């Protein structure tokens, strides 16, 4: 028997972009790569993987191709990060900051941890993965983006 999916409502700071998604076991993941740290104003980029994501207000967003396979979308009005995704692939996550209700969520995984800002501490209980640990997934993303 699967757990019932929790529905998350989401909004950027100005409200021009809204979204919703669902997950039966939502988790917060954090990326400490240099790109993510610059993109968020400092510290990791944090997100929640969600199913059935619907987004309104995409016409108010701007996409920045940050690598040969990754795209970062932000609200063009207020700057809020909306999501990161693989080029040409569906959106599978929303930026944590978008979510109206973050109660009960925990950071379960951190990636590119060797690049963590010197002042930032690991999240207790979170799996710690290096760039090398992520290499296989990165190769998958590059393959998907090439299609």
């Amino acid at each position, binding site marked *: 028997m699967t757990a019932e999916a929790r529905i998350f409502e989401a909004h950027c700071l100005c409200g021009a972009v809204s979204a919703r998604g669902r997950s039966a076991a939502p988790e917060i993941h954090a990326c400490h790569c240099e790109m993510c740290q610059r993109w968020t104003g400092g*510290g990791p980029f944090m997100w929640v993987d969600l199913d059935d994501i619907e987004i309104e207000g995409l016409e108010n967003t701007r996409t920045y191709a940050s690598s040969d396979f990754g795209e970062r979308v932000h609200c063009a009005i207020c700057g809020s990060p909306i999501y990161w995704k693989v080029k040409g692939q569906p959106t599978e996550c929303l930026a944590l900051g978008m979510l109206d209700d973050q109660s009960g969520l925990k950071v379960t995984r951190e990636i590119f941890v060797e690049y963590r800002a010197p002042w930032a501490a690991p999240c207790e209980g979170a799996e710690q993965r290096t760039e090398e640990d992520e290499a296989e997934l990165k190769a998958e993303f590059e393959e998907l983006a090439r299609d």
Partner: protein
Amino acid sequence: MGETSDIRTGHCLCGAVTVTARLHGTGFEACHCNMCQRWTGGGPYHAIRAADLEIRGEENIRTFRASDHGERANCTACGSPLYWRLQGRPIRMIAVGLLDDQTGLHIANEIFVDHRPEWMPVHEGATQETEAENLAQLKTYLEMPA
């Protein structure tokens, strides 16, 4: 008050906006208000006091006012947060994420801590200030001659 000569460079994710700043010290602030949490994609906004600020690429900066006293600046191309400042006042703090070198920096104070999300622990050693305490200080500051 002694002046430091800790001059650091920085840039947004795409490089359209670059900065040079002289840091006041190595301690910086983390703001947990709901606006900052949305603005940064989650978690607090990390801001550091900077003097002699030089910003290049101003044509790539877009500002947004989420409140009646604050102003937020982002790069139009990549969305990176650049700074928050009081409307009509000089820029005094910049986003820590801009800095190329963050060695030696530490979170010295946390504000709007009553809005900190439950998944985030208190940062050990940092002073803690609630929304009410912060706004009271802001009110005093705004009443001072500019």
